[in-house]
């Protein structure tokens, strides 16, 4: 250790930090370009599959149409993956705007987008009629709700009952508001709780419908907005996923 500067050997120098930042910028630029090209290619793959389904349905047999449906689904799944990566990169590069949100409208939009799945799963929703005023960027907070809702609809059990609620958090500076989503599904093990909100692989075969990235993206968005995410659960007793955002007043 350098006796004149006890931290010199253990702390990174300014030039090392600068080099690291340059490497990160270069890596993100590479990822952005790769994502852009992937999305252009996906436009053609998905586009032609949808074109064939639309214009050639009469001359294709059921098996062939089934293949096209599978190709379409895979294209959409890849699109969701590129969306997730793009959003995380965007947040890293630009951060989030913090402006007052109309949370009722955001949740309403998400419910509308998910309506076909809500109907298909026979889900019951309990949604507050009034929402506290918080700060964030609407299009990203919509993603947070969308990903949490998707998770609850898929893993919330048969005919999932999903309850939304809000609570001001005590003793936080700045003041934070917590938004919670409770489901009545099978809940999570201790290992499951640890892996939630991380970009690691899916937890079990029962969770194979999800991409495993949605909750990680939600965490990155919420943390960038100045809040945090969490989950309270016990196996067999459902799960409550929550996130907090800074209060607007």
């Amino acid at each position: 250790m350098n006796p004149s500067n006890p931290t010199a050997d253990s702390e990174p120098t300014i030039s090392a930090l600068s080099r690291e930042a340059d490497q990160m910028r270069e890596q993100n630029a590479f990822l952005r370009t790769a994502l852009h090209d992937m999305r252009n290619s996906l436009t053609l793959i998905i586009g032609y599959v949808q074109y064939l389904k639309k214009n050639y349905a009469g001359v294709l047999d059921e098996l062939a149409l089934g293949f096209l449906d599978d190709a379409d689904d895979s294209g959409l799944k890849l699109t969701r993956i590129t969306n997730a990566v793009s959003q995380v990169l965007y947040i890293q590069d630009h951060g989030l705007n913090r402006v007052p949100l109309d949370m009722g409208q955001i949740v309403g939009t998400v419910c509308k987008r998910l309506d076909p799945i809500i109907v298909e799963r026979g889900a019951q929703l309990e949604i507050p009629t009034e929402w506290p005023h918080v700060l964030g960027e609407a299009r990203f907070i919509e993603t947070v709700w969308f990903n949490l809702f998707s998770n609850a609809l898929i893993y919330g059990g048969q005919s999932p009952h999903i309850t939304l609620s809000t609570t001001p958090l005590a003793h936080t500076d700045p003041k934070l508001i917590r938004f919670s989503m409770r489901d009545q599904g099978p809940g999570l093990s201790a290992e499951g709780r640890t892996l939630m909100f991380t970009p690691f692989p899916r937890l079990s075969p029962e969770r194979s419908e999800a991409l495993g990235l949605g909750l990680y993206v939600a965490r990155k968005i919420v943390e960038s907005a100045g809040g945090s995410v969490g989950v309270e659960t016990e196996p067999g007793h459902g799960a409550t996923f929550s996130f907090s955002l800074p209060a607007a007043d």
Partner: protein
Amino acid sequence: MTTDTKLVLVVDDDLAIQSFLKVALMDEGYQVMLAGNGAVALDLIAKTPPNVVILDMKMPVMDGWAFLKVYCASKLPTAPVISISANVGELGTVECASHFLSKPFNLDSLITLVEQYTSQN
């Protein structure tokens, strides 16, 4: 082209996407013009005004933003512009465009938008 055939201008530097959109739109009964960048698009619009413009944002020579800056400030007949982009970060930041779709888009959604905008002019 009959007098009531609507004209769509597709502006995209990706030739494969140009071809795809041309096929898909012509099957729906539209006449289609193609441009590989914003500058070519402005020339075409000055000669043959389209009913709607489908505009990619990231292009060489003149990109979508530069095109919109000129197009929206000009006295050219301003047909509605549907912006399409493969860059998710651009979502919601396109001024003056009538609508924004991210790539990859749903074909039915694009055709519905084209129908909606061409029926207005």
